[in-house]
């Protein structure tokens, strides 16, 4: 049950990279000043950090067992499908609430407001 040196070096490099990317995304998420700016850094954690850890898992478990262990790819696919939905809904939430609060420089709604027949 021991992997070779180069496999462990590759896995260690990928894990360190993912830790650094998660830290950078959390720093950006915490210290940027507006919600629409803060939405962007978590994409690092959702994509590159998760890909690094998943590829590290694929490499490590493929080297340990026999054959490819590709099931860590499921996590990448799962996040690729679900994260844009959550992010777009949260962006719409922020825009809607900002419009309701009457903040200046907010773009108007594309669809007419409630009460018209054209909606749905």
């Amino acid at each position, binding site marked *: *049950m021991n992997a070779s*040196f180069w496999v*462990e*070096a590759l*896995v*260690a*490099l990928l*894990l*360190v990279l*993912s*830790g*650094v990317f*998660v*830290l950078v*995304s*959390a*720093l950006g*998420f*915490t210290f940027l000043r507006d*919600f629409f700016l*803060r*939405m962007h850094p*978590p994409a690092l*954690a*959702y994509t590159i*950090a*998760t890909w690094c*850890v*998943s590829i*590290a*898992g694929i490499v*490590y*478990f493929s080297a*340990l067992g026999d054959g490819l262990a590709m*099931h*860590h790819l*499921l*996590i990448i696919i*799962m*996040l690729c499908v*679900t*994260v844009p*939905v*959550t992010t777009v*809904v*949260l962006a*719409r*939430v*922020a825009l*809607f*609430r900002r419009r309701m609060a009457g903040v200046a420089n907010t773009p108007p709604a594309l669809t007419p407001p409630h009460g018209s027949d054209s909606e749905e």
Partner: protein
Amino acid sequence: MSPMLNAAIMFAIGCYALASLLVLYRLTIGPRAQDRVFALDLLYIHAMLVMLVIGIRHQSDIYFEAALLIAVFSFVSSSAMAKFILRGEVIE
């Protein structure tokens, strides 16, 4: 497991812990509700990454399924909360 891989795993988990503390700070002070929902979603992702790294540490496949479950729950809870603060109800 070599000391190099062990040190890398400890470094990664330390980075996740520090990042979770930062995101928790934003969750506490977040000026609007959408900040808090986004911070909660990011905390879910950090928990999922910790699960995957612990799975590598223990050379076990069980943690992978826990990580997949956490990813599913992250999507369900975040989108439900976002839909709730958008329209006032989850399913209309």
